[in-house]
C-alpha cells in the first residue's frame, strides 16, 4: 500500500525551543492513522505544518508522492482542537463561506451542503444564527465543514471532545465511512479507547520526538509480555495454584470466576509456546478461559512514554 502522506525529517523550532526534532512519519493511503502523545509533545505543531499554517524550518512533506504545495489545502480537511464558528453569522451562509474558501464553487457547495444537512437531519438550521446552536450542534456543523469538500486527507484533532456519546458515535461512524470511501484519516487524540476502535496505524510522539510508530497490531505484539489469563476448574483449587506458582511466574487476576475455579495470570518463558502451556494446564483441570493478554493502546502509551523518560 502506498503512502498518501510522507513527513520526512521535519524540524521546527520556536526560538530556542524545539517543537519537532527530525520528525518522520508515513501515513498509508486509506487508513486511519492515530497521532498520539501527551500534551506539548508536538502533535499540534506537526498538524499545523501539514496544514501549511506554519512552515517547517527544514524537512519535506509529500502528499501523494509530490511535494506539498499551497494549492493542496483543498485536498485536506482539518478539524482543529481549538475550533469555533463566527457567532453572528447564519449557519447556512457560514457553511457556504467556509466551503468556498476550500475552493468549491457556490453551486457545488450548495449541493454538498444539502447532502450533509439532510444526512444529519439539520436542514432547518440553515437560517439560524450560530450563537443559537448548542455546543454539540455547532460541532456537527464543524464536522460537515471539515469533510464536505471530499478531501483526500482528513485531520481530526481531538474530534470527540465536547460530544455526547450518541453524537460521538455518529461522528465515529462517519469517519469510518469516509475511510471506506477512500479518504485517509489522521486522528490525534488522548482517548485511547477510540484509538483501539478506529486506528489501524499509530505514531507516538513525546517531547518533540517520535518514539514509536507502525501498525497498531504489530506494536501490540511488540509490547506483549507473554502473559496469559487462565480460569481453570478443579476439585482442589489450592493444589493447582501452588503447582502453577512453583512452575511459572504468576500474578493474581481479576477475571470473574465461580466457586471451585481458579483465576490466575501466567507468564510464559520466552522459549515456551502457548500450546505447551495449554496442554500442561489441561492435565490440571478443565479450562474455561484461556486468553493471551495483549496490551491495549493505553498501556502501550503509558509504557512507551515511561521508557522514553527513563532513557533520558
Amino acid at each position: 500500500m502506498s503512502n498518501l502522506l510522507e513527513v520526512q525529517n521535519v524540524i521546527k523550532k520556536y526560538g530556542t525551543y524545539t517543537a519537532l526534532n527530525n520528525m518522520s512519519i508515513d501515513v498509508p493511503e486509506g487508513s486511519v492513522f492515530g497521532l498520539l502523545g501527551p500534551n506539548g509533545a508536538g502533535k499540534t505543531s506537526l498538524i499545523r505544518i501539514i496544514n501549511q499554517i506554519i512552515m517547517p524550518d527544514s524537512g519535506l512533506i509529500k502528499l501523494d508522492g509530490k511535494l506539498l504545495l499551497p494549492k493542496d489545502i483543498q485536498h485536506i480537511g482539518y478539524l482543529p482542537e481549538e475550533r469555533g464558528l463566527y457567532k453572528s453569522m447564519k449557519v447556512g451562509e457560514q457553511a457556504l463561506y467556509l466551503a468556498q474558501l476550500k475552493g468549491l464553487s457556490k453551486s457545488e457547495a450548495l449541493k454538498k451542503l444539502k447532502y450533509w444537512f439532510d444526512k444529519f437531519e439539520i436542514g432547518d438550521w440553515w437560517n439560524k444564527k450560530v450563537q443559537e446552536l448548542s455546543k454539540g450542534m455547532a460541532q456537527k456543523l464543524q464536522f460537515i465543514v471539515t469533510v464536505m469538500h471530499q478531501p483526500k486527507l482528513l485531520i481530526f484533532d481531538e474530534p470527540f471532545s465536547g460530544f455526547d456519546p450518541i453524537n460521538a458515535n455518529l461522528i465515529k461512524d462517519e469517519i469510518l465511512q469516509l475511510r471506506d470511501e477512500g479518504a485517509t484519516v489522521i486522528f490525534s487524540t488522548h482517548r485511547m479507547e477510540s484509538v483501539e476502535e478506529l486506528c489501524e496505524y499509530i505514531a507516538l510522539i513525546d517531547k518533540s520526538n517520535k518514539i514509536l510508530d507502525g501498525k497498531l497490531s504489530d506494536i501490540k505484539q511488540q509490547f506483549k509480555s507473554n502473559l496469559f489469563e487462565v480460569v481453570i476448574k478443579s476439585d482442589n483449587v489450592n493444589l493447582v495454584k501452588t503447582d502453577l506458582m512453583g512452575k511459572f511466574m504468576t500474578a493474581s487476576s481479576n477475571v470473574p470466576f465461580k466457586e471451585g475455579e481458579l483465576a490466575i495470570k501466567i507468564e510464559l518463558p520466552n522459549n515456551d509456546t502457548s500450546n505447551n502451556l495449554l496442554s500442561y494446564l489441561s492435565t490440571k483441570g478443565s479450562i474455561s478461559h484461556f486468553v493471551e493478554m495483549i496490551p491495549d493502546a493505553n498501556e502501550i502509551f503509558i509504557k512507551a512514554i515511561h521508557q522514553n523518560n527513563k532513557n533520558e
Partner: protein
Amino acid sequence: MSKLKLIIKREFISKVRNKTFLVMTILSPLIVIAMGVLIAYLAKLNQENIKIIAYVDNSGFFEKKDFQDSESVHYIDLSSDAIEVAKSKVTTSDFYGLLVIPKKDSVSTIASSVEFYSKKSPNIILVSSLEQKIEHRLEETKMKQLNIDIERLNLTKIKASIQLSNFIGEKSSKIINSMKIGIGLAAGYLIMMFIIIYGAMVMRSVIEEKTSRIIEVIISSVKPFQLMMGKIIGTALAGLLQFTVWGLLLLVIVLVLPSVLGIEAMDFKNINVPLEQAEGMKEVALNDAQMIFVEISRLPLFRMFILFIAYFLGGYLLYSSIYAAIGSAVDNETDTQQFVIPVIIPLMLAVYVGFASVISDPHGPISIVFSMIPLTSPIVMLMRIPFGVPWWQILISFILLLATFLITVWFAAKIYRIGILMYGKKPSYKEIFKWIKY
C-alpha cells in the same frame, strides 16, 4: 471567486449588517437633521419675537429718525415721562428694555452715562447697535459744536481694501484663505476619525476570530496574510459606504430641507445685525462672491480629490495593519489599551500640528517635516494641499508613506501569523518582537 474576494465580501457584509453600523449610518445624519431643524426653528422664533425698546431722551440731541424701527426691534419714545414713570411703564407693558439718555453739560459725558434697563441681561449685539446709534448722533452733534462741515467731512472718507495676488498675477480673496483652512482641516480630521474608528473595527474583528476559535479553521484554507488584507479592505469598503451614505444624506438636507421649511440658508435678517454693518457685509460679499467662485474653480479640485483618496488609503492601510497586529496579539479587547495608545498618539499629534502650524504657516518647516513623516503625513499633508504644495514634496511624502506601509504590513503580517494562534496570556512587547524574528 478568489479567496481574497470572498474574505472581503464576508467582512463587508458582516460589518454592514451589524446593528451598530446601521444605527450609526442612519442615526447620525438624523441627529444632524434634527439639530438643523431645531436651530432653524429657534432662529425663526427669534425673528418673530419683536423686541420693543422704550427710550427717554433728556439731552434733546436725539430725534425720532435716530431710532428707526427695524424688523425685529421697535422703538417707543417715552421722553415726555419722568424716568420712574417710564420704568414702571416698561415693566407693566413687558417691553424688552428702557434706554435712558441723561441731560449733561458736555456731549462726552452724555456718551459715557447712557443707561439701559432690562429685566434680563440684554443681547450683546443689540447693545452694540444701540451704542452705534448713540455714537453716530453724538459725533454729529459734536461736529456741529466744533463747526465742522459734515458733508465735506464725509467726502474725505476712504475705505482701503488690499487685493491679494501671487506673482503670476492671479488674484485671490481673503475669504478663500479661510476656506482653504476649512477644507484642509476637514479633510485631515475626517481621515483621523476614519482611521481610529475603522482601525479599531479591524482590531475587534481579529479578536472576534480569535475568541470564537474559528481562526485555525480559516487559516487552514487561506494564508494569514490574505485573511488580514481581506479584513482590512472589507472594513474600509464598509467605511466608505458609510461616508457615502452620510454625504448623500447631508446633500439632501442642504438642498431639500431649507425649501421644505421655508428658511433661506443665508438670511442676514435672522440676526440682529445693525443695518449699516449688514450692508457693509453684503457689499464685501458681493465684491468677493465672484472672486471666491473664480478661486474655487481655480483650486485644483480634481487633484485634491485624488490626493485625498490616495493619502486616505495610504494612512488607513498603514494604521489598520498595525491595528490588525495588535488584535492578533491579545485575547480580548481590554488587553489592547497598552498597544493602542502609542498608535493614537501620532494621529493626535498630526491633528494638533495641523491646527497649530498649518493654519499659521502652511509652508513652514514644522508643516513640511510633519507632512513627510509617514505616521502623520496623511493628515498634515492633506491640510496643506489646498494651499498648494510643490509636487516634489507630495512625491517624497507619498513614497515614504507607501514604503512605510509595505514595511509595516510585512511586520504586522508576521506578528499576526503567530499571534492568531497564541492563546492565554497577554504578550509583552519583547515577546511580540520575538515573533517577528520567527
